[in-house]
């Protein structure tokens, strides 16, 4: 289960299958799962939490060694495992009121663990991107069970993947409820990622966070994948592809990937004078 459309679709199918069960002891047969990206623990955690909140208990059977190791290193499974290579950014759930705790978690994990090769500026922009994704979930998702996060570094291919998932109303519904715009799930994601979009009304402006993330990822040649209900949106090599999945994911997933070996400075086009900013 990679960080891909098929990986996310598999989680949506798992949610669909689990949604039929209440107050049951469920065994998940993981015999066919040969690999799982560590960061995919974030949406997996959301799906399983929804199932356990319906009174179910869940256990894995036929879990392969590689997958068990990945899930143990991230702290997703309680089984102890030593993350020798310091490549896991642990699985963690936050309430929507915990933006500061999320910032502390990423700050600490990016210092103490296995992301030593990022330039100072890339690290700052990466963390800024994560903060913006988290803020977006806080402001728009209405997720009753919080926000699930997990990351994985891949030193050999010089990549970090980080995934943030909520189990909220999704971008399509947020747009419908706040702006009265009726779009398909993939169109709603595209709208949210466009320059002028905001679903906010009232006293506080909004609608910048995801655009800033997109600008950064496009400049650095990384990837963004967004899943929201049946919508799938993928930015890679400055090219966007969208897709409608068969089964809806119960909320929104935002996953980013950056190249950790990037050393190019992130230049601004013009110098900004603080005295003239207003």
């Amino acid at each position, binding site marked *: 289960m990679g960080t891909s459309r098929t990986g996310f679709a598999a989680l949506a199918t798992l949610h669909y299958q689990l949604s039929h069960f209440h107050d049951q002891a469920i065994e998940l047969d993981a015999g066919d799962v040969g690999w799982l990206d560590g960061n995919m623990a974030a949406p997996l955690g959301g799906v399983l939490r929804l199932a356990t909140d319906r009174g179910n208990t869940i256990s894995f059977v036929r879990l392969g060694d590689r997958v068990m190791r990945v899930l143990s290193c991230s702290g997703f499974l309680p089984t102890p495992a030593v993350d020798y290579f310091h490549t896991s950014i642990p699985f963690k759930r936050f309430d929507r009121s915990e*933006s500061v705790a999320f910032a502390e978690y990423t700050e600490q994990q990016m210092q103490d663990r296995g992301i030593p090769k990022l330039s100072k500026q890339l690290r*700052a922009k990466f963390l800024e991107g994560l903060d913006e994704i988290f*803020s977006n979930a*806080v402001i728009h998702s209405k997720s009753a069970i919080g926000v699930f996060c997990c990351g994985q570094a891949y030193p050999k291919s010089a990549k970090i993947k980080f995934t943030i998932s909520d189990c909220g109303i999704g971008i399509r519904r947020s747009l419908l409820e706040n702006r009265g715009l009726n779009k398909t799930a993939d169109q709603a994601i595209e709208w949210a990622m466009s320059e002028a979009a905001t679903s906010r009304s009232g*006293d*506080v402006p909004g*609608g910048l*966070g995801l655009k*800033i993330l997109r600008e950064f990822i496009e400049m650095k040649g990384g990837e963004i994948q967004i899943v929201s209900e049946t919508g799938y949106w993928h930015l890679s090599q400055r090219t966007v592809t969208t897709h409608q999945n068969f089964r809806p994911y119960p909320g929104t997933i935002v996953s980013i990937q950056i190249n950790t070996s990037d050393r190019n400075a992130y230049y*601004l086009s013009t110098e900004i004078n603080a005295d003239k900013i207003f």
Partner: protein
Amino acid sequence: MPATIHVTELVGTPFCVASEDGTKLYAAIFEHLRRHTVVEVSFAGVTRLTTAFLNAAIGQAYGEFSADEIREYLRVSGLDQQDLSLMQKVVDRAITFFANQKRA
């Protein structure tokens, strides 16, 4: 000397990421703008900044005060070029946001 608001002291953390903390800062700024007294907002020591925080702290001022009033009475310091870029985007967005609200 203008009054100075030290952001890290006000919100109690160098992580200026939460919209609620931004609203706290706006409440402090609001009093100065309302009384037409100059206030400097010092971001010295801030290590993380989001648009959610800045929208609440600075952006919403454009819904209650004119751009001229904000320009005359509000100062910022302690922001590096990346953060100033973020602030610039928030200011531009706020001006558009409230102009669109007035038109609607």
